[in-house]
């Protein structure tokens, strides 16, 4: 696929469980995410979700949820935001909030970056997606907020493509890791570094006083 004068060659990428897409800044990770979502049309190839070919579907109709790289702040109170999209997709926002443990957010004014991202994560789950694409959802967050979001992500059981430039995050979350380098995708490799990542994050948390 090509965009902004860059091309990304994917070959085949299959996402079950949690797959981390690891790559440096500018490697083309967001181009890949946007084309999977249908915002960019791939030059060649097809996109399947749960066996269904969605290549010709517009983003609004794809059974995929997407959390973009830049944090989105909708002009709604947390409860109103959740109610709006729960109504639209016929889902139960209280169940999602309970699942992610976000009850405390509901009455808050002025959410932190991490809280905003958790609210948006809950929102995208209301679509009842067959797959999730999260484009560097923690890249703008401090460690405490990052830890909060990563913990919430661990509790999600929807197939997830987690895009990141951070190998520790990838190792902490992923079942499999693919690497995008020089416009080419390599992998997947099974993640055997979760224990190491947990240890690194635990120690960092102790240093920063975040648990």
């Amino acid at each position, binding site marked *: 696929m090509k965009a902004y004068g860059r091309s990304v060659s994917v070959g085949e990428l299959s996402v079950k469980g949690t797959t981390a897409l690891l790559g440096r800044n500018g490697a083309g990770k967001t181009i890949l995410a946007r084309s999977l979502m249908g915002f960019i049309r791939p030059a060649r190839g097809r996109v399947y979700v749960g066996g269904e070919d969605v290549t010709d579907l517009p*983003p*609004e109709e794809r059974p995929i*949820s*997407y959390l973009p790289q*830049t944090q989105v702040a*909708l*002009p709604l109170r947390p409860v109103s935001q959740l109610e709006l999209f729960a109504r639209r997709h016929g889902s139960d926002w209280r169940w999602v909030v309970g699942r992610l443990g976000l009850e405390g957010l509901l009455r808050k004014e002025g959410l932190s970056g991490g809280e905003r991202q958790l609210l948006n994560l809950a929102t*995208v789950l209301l679509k009842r997606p067959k797959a999730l694409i999260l484009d560097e959802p923690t890249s703008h967050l401090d460690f405490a907020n990052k830890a909060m979001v990563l913990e919430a992500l661990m509790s999600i059981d929807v197939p997830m493509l987690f895009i990141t430039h951070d190998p520790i995050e990838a190792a902490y979350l992923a079942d499999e890791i693919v690497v995008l380098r020089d416009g080419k995708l390599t992998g997947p490799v099974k993640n055997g570094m979760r224990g190491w990542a947990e240890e690194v994050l635990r120690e960092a948390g102790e240093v920063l006083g975040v648990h």
Partner: protein
Amino acid sequence: MDRVQALCLGVSLAYFSLLTVPALLTYRPEFEPTFLEALVNTALLATVSTSVSVPLGVVLAYGTLPAPWRLIAPVVTFTVSVPHTAIGVLLAPAVFGAGLADTATAVALAMIVVSTPMSFSVLRGAFASLGSCYVEFLRAMGMRGLGVAAMMLRSTRTALVSASVLTWFRSFSELGALLILAHRPLTVGVYVYEEFLRRGAGPVIGASLVLALVALAVAIVLERWSGDAGGR
């Protein structure tokens, strides 16, 4: 206050003084009864114009955001760079052909044409500042066209108010197109122009100062309000 800020203050005061001090030192303000008539006409027709220009600006701003449609934006904004007498001349065949010369409709039409670029530019900038991720998030959540636009408007309501006020003032201050299309009903720009030609600067200094001070007061309130709303 650092040097740059002091310079800004100095330039601003000089700018304002140039417009007010020599006028006040040279002439004694006086007011003609027709000034009030012109003021009311202009305010009413500027309100009509704003009620058309702002919704039009919203639609055009939203519609020209995606990449392939950006090239349409200059088609809306080019009128800013053209003398408005020329805009009046370009509108003249349609207005005169429809028998609308010197009517309230002609005034409103001229105001709409010259003020729509204002609402369009302010709102387009506000929509663009939300970023493509904002739209993509909503679209991925199944929202389309009007739903996305409505959410963007709620997110940019401060800009919407600013756009409305600026559009109203742009309509209110129009002269060039009105000189070609409609001297009547009397509007403030035409009033000042006609009185100046008839009797010189002195008799319209008062009216001109009132217009300038009202506009200044509203601009200050708007600046302060938009700053507060933006959390600055």
